């Protein structure tokens, strides 16, 4: 599948998860790799890009079980991007449904 497309979908997934609550890298990576079977490492370049684009911010928070963790939080710009990506995605899967459902 088109790498740009996959990255766009992963961005949508990451933003969706961060809208629910702030999370650190390992959490995001393990949730994604469990559900859509991507390599854990794929998530970090995307997080860095989202941060440099101002879609997410980061902050450090102490952890009971080791060094402080870098948490990611979605920004207002990130929420807007999420809305746009979500609309695109829904339109896309709707078209795929029409085609696979044999209506075309």
């Amino acid at each position, binding site marked *: 599948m088109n790498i740009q497309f996959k990255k766009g979908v992963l961005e949508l997934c990451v933003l969706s998860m961060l809208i629910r609550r702030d999370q650190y*890298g390992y959490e995001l990576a393990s949730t994604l790799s469990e559900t859509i079977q991507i390599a854990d490492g794929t998530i970090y370049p995307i997080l860095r890009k989202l941060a440099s684009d101002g879609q997410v911010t980061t902050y450090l928070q102490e952890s009971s079980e080791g060094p402080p963790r870098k948490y990611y939080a979605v920004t207002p710009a990130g929420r807007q991007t999420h809305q746009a990506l979500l609309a695109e995605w829904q339109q896309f899967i709707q078209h795929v449904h029409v085609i696979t459902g044999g209506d075309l």
Partner: protein
Amino acid sequence: MNKHQFMNQLRQALSPLDGPAIAEILADFEEHFAAGFSRGKSEESIAAELGDPLEIGRQYAEAASAIPPAPVPPAAAPAAPRINEGALLGVILLNLFIGIPLWLGLFAALAGFWAGAGSIGAAAVVLFVLAVFQAGVISLILVLFAIALSALTILSVIFLVYLTKWMIKGVVAWFRWNRSLVTGGAAA
């Protein structure tokens, strides 16, 4: 692959990036390993789940090179014809001394030819009319002359239609050539 090997390969793959960025990214992966350890995972399984460090590094390098979203120079696409002032002056002089006199002369000649063809046609009509008022051999001679002049008129008109078309094409080509000189050949 253990953590040390993973981090080394990742560091190598990140070498196109600047120092602070490399340090930040490596810290993220240190944290990832630490979080995995706290869940009781081994170095090897964490590294395996992370994937190929070279591929991850390539993704960072790719994103970093794309980060200044290369502003496409907008001037390039809707290319306004660039006027070359020197060529413009040359073309003006060329037209003033050669182009305009040449084309005016040619079109004056063309108008003359059309007038000539018209005169021949008019003469043919006059001869036909005269023939009506004459009798015998003279009438026959006048009719024959009139027919000959009519044929000449038709041939002239056919020739002049083509000549006029060629000249119009010639003027258009001349203007195009002038424009391409001024705009440096950019204009189609």
